[in-house]
């Protein structure tokens, strides 16, 4: 049984541990070399032993460790050394704690399948670890070269990811996010240009600050890059064009002409060809005017009530079913001419719609306008007491879909997965283990050895400290 952990990451004591904790990072960061000059030899050995044992096999009792300790240290000789000329000395004393690296819990931590050795122990005891396909429940299991060990991927995602928030924590974060978002949308609606520029500036700053780094919330939709936006708009544009084209028919053209002219008639203005230019363009406006004249002069549609006028128009352009007109309709020469005119208008108008969509490039102003109009306020999140009963709430922000860290609350880790903070200073690929993160499998290649200039045992302490710790354990040495 290991010792109970009491304030493992004490900042006052400042020991370095096998852990990815942020306190541990600071302890490592502020570490200074022990001041050996004013110590007796035994004090030197004792303090070195303290420092190194706090990192190496802190979870192993001293008695158990003394059975593992070997006074003969493992190193390698390089046969091509004589060809190279000068060869660096081999730091053999760094092998003092090499026997601990064979332990399964330590290997698990080295392979980065757990965020600390203590957590690795918990994974093993919980039955989440297999060695060569066999469930192993002993943290002290000794690995032999060639062994393949695996951890339950969910555990690894838990260990390397951010900690999963509780519903309350997620709610707190999301509440704030929604409030900020509402304010942002409000501002964007009021002053699109200014907000856009501000956003652009912020993005540029972040890009500079976090270049080459993993940044949690990065969304394509959020981009202020005009070119990128245009690309994403292209699809949207095509979709919209299709929509418009589908809505255009003889009847819709007729109705458009009617509504445009009716508005002018009601305001007691003259209807001319120019009044149709806005919607139909210069070339089609003449034909539109002909339609209007036919409508106004012969049918007197303009003087009718709106409901009556619609009925009238339905009679001019009836609904066709299997090639035959349905219901009551006009079959005289004038109506035929009107229908023919409308057909011509319809086809030409469709062409015009297509041309408008493809040829007209969007300016930045238009993009900003589209951006600001596309922004929608988020529906209000209910009070926490309500949510507590339900267990979830709806959230959809441009950079986050679902609750913060709880997109899939059934998973034991932060979803969607994000790397934990301060992972990179502790991410050390071991040389004696080959790791496959995608399957959470690893192969223990060999026991770590020392070679000229380096040791495969990962340790924050250098030769001088390890030398004294080694001396402490060999006992008969000095």
């Amino acid at each position, binding site marked *: 049984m290991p010792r109970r952990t009491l304030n493992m990451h004490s900042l*006052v004591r*400042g020991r370095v541990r096998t852990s990815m904790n942020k306190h541990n990072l600071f302890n490592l960061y502020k570490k200074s070399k022990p001041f050996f000059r004013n110590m007796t030899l035994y004090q030197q050995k004792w303090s070195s032993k303290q420092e190194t044992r706090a990192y190496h096999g802190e979870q192993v009792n001293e008695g158990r460790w003394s059975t593992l300790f070997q006074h003969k240290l493992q190193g390698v000789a390089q046969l091509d050394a004589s060809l190279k000329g000068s060869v660096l000395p081999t730091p053999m004393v760094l092998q003092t704690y090499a026997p601990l690296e064979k332990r399964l819990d330590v290997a698990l931590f080295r392979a980065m399948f757990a965020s600390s050795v203590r957590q690795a122990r918990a994974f093993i005891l919980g039955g989440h670890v297999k060695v060569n396909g066999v469930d192993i429940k002993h943290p002290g299991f000794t690995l032999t070269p060639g062994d393949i060990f695996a951890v339950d991927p969910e555990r690894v995602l838990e260990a390397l990811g951010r900690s999963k928030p509780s519903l309350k924590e997620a709610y707190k974060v999301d509440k704030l996010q929604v409030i900020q978002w509402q304010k942002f949308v409000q501002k964007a609606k009021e002053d699109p240009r200014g907000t856009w520029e501000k956003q652009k500036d912020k993005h540029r700053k972040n890009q500079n600050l976090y270049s*080459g780094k993993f940044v949690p919330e990065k969304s394509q939709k959020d981009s202020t890059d005009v070119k990128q936006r245009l690309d994403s708009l292209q699809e949207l544009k095509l979709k919209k064009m299709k929509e418009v084209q589908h809505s255009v028919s003889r009847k819709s053209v007729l109705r458009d002409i009617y509504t445009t002219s009716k508005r002018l008639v009601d305001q007691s203005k003259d209807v001319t060809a120019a009044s149709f230019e806005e919607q139909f363009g210069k070339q089609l406006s003449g034909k539109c005017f002909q339609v209007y004249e036919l409508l106004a002069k012969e049918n007197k549609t303009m003087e009718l009530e709106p409901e009556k006028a619609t009925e009238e128009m339905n009679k001019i352009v009836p609904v066709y079913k299997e090639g035959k007109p349905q219901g009551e309709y006009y079959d005289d020469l004038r109506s035929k001419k009107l229908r023919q005119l409308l057909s011509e208008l319809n086809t030409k108008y469709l062409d015009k719609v297509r041309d408008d969509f493809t040829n007209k490039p969007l300016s930045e102003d238009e993009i900003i306008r589209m951006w600001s109009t596309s922004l929608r306020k988020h529906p209000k999140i209910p009070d926490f007491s309500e949510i507590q009963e339900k267990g979830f709430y709806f959230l959809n922000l441009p950079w986050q879909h679902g609750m913060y860290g709880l997109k899939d609350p059934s998973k034991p880790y932060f979803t969607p997965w994000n790397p934990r903070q301060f992972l990179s200073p502790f991410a050390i690929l071991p040389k004696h283990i080959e790791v496959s993160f995608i399957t959470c499998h690893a192969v223990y*290649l060999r026991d770590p050895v020392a070679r000229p200039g380096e040791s495969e045992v990962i340790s924050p302490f250098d030769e001088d400290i390890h030398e004294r710790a080694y001396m402490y354990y060999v006992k008969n040495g000095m």
Partner: protein
Amino acid sequence: MLQIRGNAELFNGSANAVKLITRGQVSQVRYRRTLAYPFYSKAGNIPPPRHGRKQTVFKRLMDEFLGPKNYKGDYYLNKYAYPNQNHSTNYIDPSSERGNSLLKAKQRDAVSSTEKTEEGVDFSRDEGGHGRQRRPLQPFPMNSHCFTDVQISKEMKEQIVNDVVKLKMPSQNVALKYGLKIQRIEAIVKLSQVEDSWKKAGLITKDLQRMSDVMYNMFPLYDASKNGENLTEIPIPEETTQSRFVTIAESEPFGPVDAAREFGLEPAAVTLQKLSEGGEHSAHSNRASHGTDTKSFVAKMHEGDRSAFRFTDVKVGQVGYRYGKSFRDNRKDRKIGFDASGKMVYLLD
């Protein structure tokens, strides 16, 4: 505040104080707790507490190092908070930063020094200037003998698997081709098989894929010409780790070969050859021959026998309890081993 400052001064002055008191002799204090102040902190320079809270000096110093925290709990300005994703390492460098570990908007020099590590790193190169050793693969600033491994790129792994599995190249040749040890080649092949079976079974989730991508982009990539493994390594023979004395005539020549004979060592070439054998994909696999040297037979059965007995050669002392040998089964921290089913057993020693 006064008391705190006093502590800090005590710490910084402690080295001198000890020197003054003990000129000529070392102090014989049985227990003195030295507080782990950062090596860069000065007596008067204790940062203010965060948000007017009551905080210890150490907590304040840590908060200064971590930097501001946003509403999600991210230390968004700390250099080490988010992992690098451009195949470069992000290890701490306290000696040049001295506690100031926040990201700066324009840090062209610092960025370029880490970006250099993108492919293949030379161990011997000095980094960071100031005449100080700053090596990108060295994770701990205090240990100049510890280095992280580099990642083998996905493409290279595919090539290796293709060479071994499809082209049936012996692992010795593949190892030579890529500058990787045979065991590593074998491991890569083994792990790729696992990966394939997982892909087929649909076990690779989106989150798992994301995690593995992040981890992949965090480490520098392997380049055979720069960080190839030394393939001529052999373990130092155990016999040579202690001295042996031989009496020889003064005029008698005595070289390494004689020494090897004295120790009873085989030539290194033979050891190296032995090391390269035995893998699953080896050119001269000795797996098959391995089984033959353990003699085992099933004894003839007689009428009325209910079970057949298999007899296997074992060395005396390795199995069973030898009469007369001391056997303290109540000893503390007895040696332990594990059987094939993963059950812990106490070993006889």
